[in-house]
């Protein structure tokens, strides 16, 4: 992307100093609007049960699913509630899936004295062949079997199943469908090349120092210090940087201080303090040059349950002096230059990864879009705020860019929908592990990874490279 345009002046700086090097003005932000209001919690009360969130989720998604069911199985398909089921009658039922998994960590089992169980260590995946799917609606539940992939699906998904009830009380599924892609948003993207840089998992405060240089190189590219003139002028077209979570490393969590005696830990500073100072400095360098949106992630100092609230600006005194810094929620939805972005820091995808047979983050991301819900496993296995009025994770409009942070690799796919939806699915890799960030071109929804590496094993001269 950058390379072709920049190649002309690539060697320009291998020369004696010339007069007055050019400075390029950064492309101004033409339209930005933050659409994350549903994810911002004001007054929070945890006195409510989580059953309400399932009730509003089902109520919110039922109309869409019934429409889909009719379009798929004919207009005359019989839609029934579970309480109205008649044995042997082919009908369609809309409900919430529940997957009962033997290996699912259960706090009740752990603390139960009868079982005498040792707490289960965290596993990468909790699926087993013996898992069962159960469909629940407002009043009843029924076991499902048949043409439905038990391993692949997760709890909390709203699904419409077509089949009939057996005499043993189970529902034999012949076909099923999800909410499918939400209705499309009108396209009003920019007419020229505008880029948005997405990075996640900066992992500051970790023990390793190698990734720090890569982070510095990333900042230098974006602020226009690194690279020859051509590259710098291309970098001036980056209109925004989105940091999708895990700015701090997992090492900063300092969980072991909970077990230590108070007198030992009294005056020790939390590891995250130093890391946040480093983050502040990096953000300051970025903010003096480009608008930045900072999303919190799993290891960042904010609340644990989804939707995570923005980091507090008191932690970033230097950077928050600039209006270009925006501290936003996780999940984050915004309209940049007419292009709607929606994404999370990756907790939703990694949670589905643990409880489903799907292995590919991009596949899971696409599946959540087709299921019409950002995070179906919340609140079952992923912490979530007890919503009761409406479920803000239901997808009502199809975004143009749908991303998730902290993925193991960079992957992207342009999905075309039947109703004219065009979505760029993007898994933003973990920067501390892969040193890769993503560059999205808003003009044509193309995207490209950009990797920073230094001191490769096969270099004599000590080259550093910037690949894209």
């Amino acid at each position, binding site marked *: 992307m950058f*390379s072709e345009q*920049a*190649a002309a*002046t*690539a*060697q320009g*700086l*291998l*020369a*004696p*100093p*010339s007069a007055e*090097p050019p*400075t*390029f003005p*950064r492309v*101004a*932000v033409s339209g930005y609007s933050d659409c994350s209001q549903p994810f*911002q919690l004001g007054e929070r009360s945890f006195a409510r049960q989580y059953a309400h969130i399932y009730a509003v989720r089902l109520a919110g998604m039922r109309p869409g699913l019934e429409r889909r069911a009719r379009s798929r199985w004919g207009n005359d398909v019989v839609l029934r509630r579970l309480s109205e089921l008649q044995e042997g009658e082919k009908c369609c039922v809309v409900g919430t899936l529940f997957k009962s998994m033997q290996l699912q960590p259960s706090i009740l089992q752990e603390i139960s004295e009868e079982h005498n169980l040792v707490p289960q260590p965290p596993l990468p995946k909790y699926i087993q062949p013996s898992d069962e799917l159960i469909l629940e609606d407002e009043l009843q539940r029924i076991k499902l079997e048949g043409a439905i992939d038990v391993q692949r699906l997760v709890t909390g998904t709203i699904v419409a199943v077509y089949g009939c009830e057996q005499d043993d009380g189970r529902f034999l599924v012949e076909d099923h469908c999800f909410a499918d892609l939400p209705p499309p948003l009108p396209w009003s993207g920019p007419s020229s090349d505008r880029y948005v840089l997405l990075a996640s998992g900066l992992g500051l405060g970790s023990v390793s*120092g190698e990734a*720090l*240089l890569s982070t510095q190189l990333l900042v*230098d590219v974006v*602020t*226009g*210090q690194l*690279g*020859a003139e*051509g*590259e*710098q*002028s291309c970098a*001036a077209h980056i209109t925004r940087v989105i940091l999708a979570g895990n700015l701090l490393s997992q090492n900063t969590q300092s969980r072991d201080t909970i077990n230590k005696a108070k007198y030992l830990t009294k005056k020790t500073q939390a590891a995250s303090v130093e890391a946040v100072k480093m983050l502040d*400095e990096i953000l*300051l*360098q970025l*903010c*003096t*040059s*480009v*608008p930045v949106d900072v999303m919190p992630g799993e290891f960042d100092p904010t609340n644990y349950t989804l939707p995570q609230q923005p980091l*507090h600006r*008191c932690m970033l*005194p230097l950077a*928050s*002096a*600039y*209006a*270009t810094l925006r501290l936003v929620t996780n999940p984050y939805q915004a309209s940049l230059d007419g292009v709607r972005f929606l994404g999370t820091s990756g907790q939703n995808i990694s949670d589905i990864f643990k409880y489903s047979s799907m292995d590919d983050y991009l596949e899971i991301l696409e599946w959540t879009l087709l299921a019409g819900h950002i995070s179906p496993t919340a609140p079952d296995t992923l912490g979530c705020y007890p919503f009761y009025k409406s479920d803000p994770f239901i997808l009502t409009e199809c975004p143009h860019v749908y991303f998730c942070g902290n993925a193991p690799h960079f992957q992207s796919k342009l999905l075309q929908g039947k109703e004219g939806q065009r979505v760029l699915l993007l898994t933003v890799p973990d920067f501390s592990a892969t040193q890769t960030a993503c560059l999205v071109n808003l003009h044509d929804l193309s995207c490209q990874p950009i*990797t920073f590496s*230094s*001191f490769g094993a096969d270099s004599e*001269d*000590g*080259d*550093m*490279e*910037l*690949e*894209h």
Partner: protein
Amino acid sequence: MADELYLENIDEFVTDHNRVVTYKWLSYTLGVHVNQAKQMLYDYVERKRKENSGAQLHVTYLVAGNLLQNGHFVTMKSKLSTIASVHVYSIQKALLKDSSPLYNTDYDIVKTNLQHCSKFSAIRCAAAVPRTPPDAPQVPEPVQSPQRQRDPDAAINGHRVRAAKPPPQQHKGIMGMFAAKAAARPQDTPKEAKAEAKEAAGVSAANCKPPTKNTIMNNFFGKAAMNKLKANSVPEQPKEEKEVVKPSVAVAESESSPNTVAEKPGKKTESDRIQQKDKKSKTKRVDRSDDEEERDPENVKKKRKRIKQLLSDSSDEEDVPPSPTPEEERVPSPPPEPALKTELEPASTEVSAGGRKRKRKRVLKSRMFIDEEEGCMVTEKVYESESCTDSEDEFPKTKAPAPQEQAMLPTKREPKEERKNPKKGAAPASRANKQVSIMGFCQKK
């Protein structure tokens, strides 16, 4: 010949100082554009190569481009299909084993130039301007009741970030007055769109004044007061201290600059301690004791600031109405005790402007009444405004001579004495949250 100077500079840095000279470091040190710095480094490398002098130089390059997907590559350059840019990244004498010297060099130089880190960059962003702090402090509010009305407004107005601040301040009853002040102060500048700018306003103007009075005021307050001062000022100050250190050094007396400097390193670690203390009750002094010695120098200085303010109150009658209230305005979030005192005196003096004879004071009185429902007698301690003369009321009397004593003899004794008084005042008012101090028995009922 000016062109040759940079060559000599680079030579000096690399060979004599044994430095790792990165383009960024050179750019900041010589004050040139980053591209010029890169070219300078290249020029130096080329000349050194031509000279062939035998001095070993290691050069690190930056290569950027599109990666070729397949095959095994000999050099870094052959890995890239199109090269987007190549330039010298750094020059150093020794062979680098890893990237940490490069990172450290850049980190250090950026850290010392944080405020203008994009000065020599090739990209300028028009949108990246610091949020403007609002104008100089406005006319102070004269009476308490408008402040009270504005307090709920302040709590509702503004976004969540703002809302985070008033609640910790409204914890204790006596703090209500301060919260009203601190929150209502931004109301004076309704034009300000950003709430954080409002706090910055109060603080930046405030910080110019308090450092000057630190020496005398600090004796005045008890530890609880210090907690409050810190709790509220610390979140607001970090941003301001950078800018304020400069003006305050210019304005302040010699002892104030150590204050601001001492505050700065202390502030970060204090902030988390302060948050805990906000919630603890006043009697949990044990936990605070280990922190007190660290915070005492600052406490002492802060206390002294208060004393002087009151001194000016009691001594200068005509100037009392305007002067204490602007000073209240400027202090970021003054602790409860000075609130009590300064409000007592301005309130009283404003009601009867110019006269010291009759003052309306808020006095702690106990009311007894019979509660029919429960069938018992209830004794309640209430603050009531009552009109009284100076001599009859002991409460202000103990305070009025005390500030004057302060000015005369600043000894160790005073901090304790003054601490007693604020505690007497604070404790009954916030009895719901705090245990009544034992000194309450010494008060005249």
